[in-house]
């Protein structure tokens, strides 16, 4: 029962924040809404026993990726978004299509009428760090290593892309001191 209440609370928060993400014009508000979505998803993860993932969700998503977003918004001093004819077309066509998509997805999922999973609060299945680590470093070792390479490449790519064109040399090191005057 408690679980259902918590699900609805955090689910509502997540959906409301996601709607707010769309409604807000200024990117920084959208970013903050997304952080709220992520935090409530982390709570939902906890409900489903994915405690390691919940913590990682907060640390990596909210604490690192979204900080990067906020940082870039601050750096570029991006202002409020402007409406253009293109956005109006997207609104007219996109909304019905998406409502259709969401509706069909929900119908498909609910029509199956699955049994409620009978897992009580505090019971057995836990995605503990140890369990995940064992899976990650045995069965998924190759993908894990591949992702580390991916991250490395991403770092290098980001540095290359974001570094300004080489026009001004950085802080020049002082030249060797000139000869004494006399």
């Amino acid at each position, binding site marked *: 029962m408690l*679980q*259902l209440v918590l*699900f609805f609370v955090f*689910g509502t928060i*997540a959906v409301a924040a*996601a709607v707010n*993400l*769309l409604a807000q014009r200024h*990117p920084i508000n*959208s*970013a903050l809404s997304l952080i709220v*979505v992520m935090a409530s*998803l982390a709570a*939902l*993860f906890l*409900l*489903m026993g*994915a405690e390691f*993932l919940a913590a*990682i969700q907060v640390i*990596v*998503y909210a604490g*690192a990726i979204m900080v*990067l*977003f906020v940082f*870039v918004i601050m750096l*570029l001093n*991006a202002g409020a*978004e402007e*409406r*253009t004819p*293109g*956005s109006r077309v997207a*609104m007219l*066509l*996109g909304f019905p299509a*998406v*409502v259709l998509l*969401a509706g069909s*997805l*929900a119908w498909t*999922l*609910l029509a199956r*009428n*699955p049994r*409620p*999973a009978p897992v009580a609060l505090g019971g057995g*299945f836990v*995605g503990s760090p140890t369990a995940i680590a064992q*899976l990650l470093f045995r069965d*998924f070792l190759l*993908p894990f290593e591949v*992702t580390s390479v991916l*991250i490395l*490449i*991403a770092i290098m*790519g*980001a540095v290359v*892309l*974001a570094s300004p064109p080489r026009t001004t040399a950085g802080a020049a090191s002082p030249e060797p001191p000139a000869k004494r005057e006399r």
Partner: protein
Amino acid sequence: MVPISYYLVLSAILFSLGVVGFLIKRNLITLFMSIELMLNAVNLAFVAFAWQWKSLNGQVFVFFVMVVAAAEAAVGLAIIIAVFRTRETLNVDRVNLLKL
């Protein structure tokens, strides 16, 4: 006692909202955030399935999604900075040429 389908429906709603955002928003950064929202929705589905089947594989996949999202965010935001530097705008309608 939450049915698995509730989680999946929530995931579907969040995913759809992400799609809506991707379609109607005009700011590059917000677009990017919509993509992140979709990824999060997928993560939720993954965790829900993992819970249903009592298998951690789903959670491990979420882990990989996060890694990819982090890499994507780093590169994507770097591209946005580069675009902003040349175009001085973040509106996708004005950033319609592939050439920087």
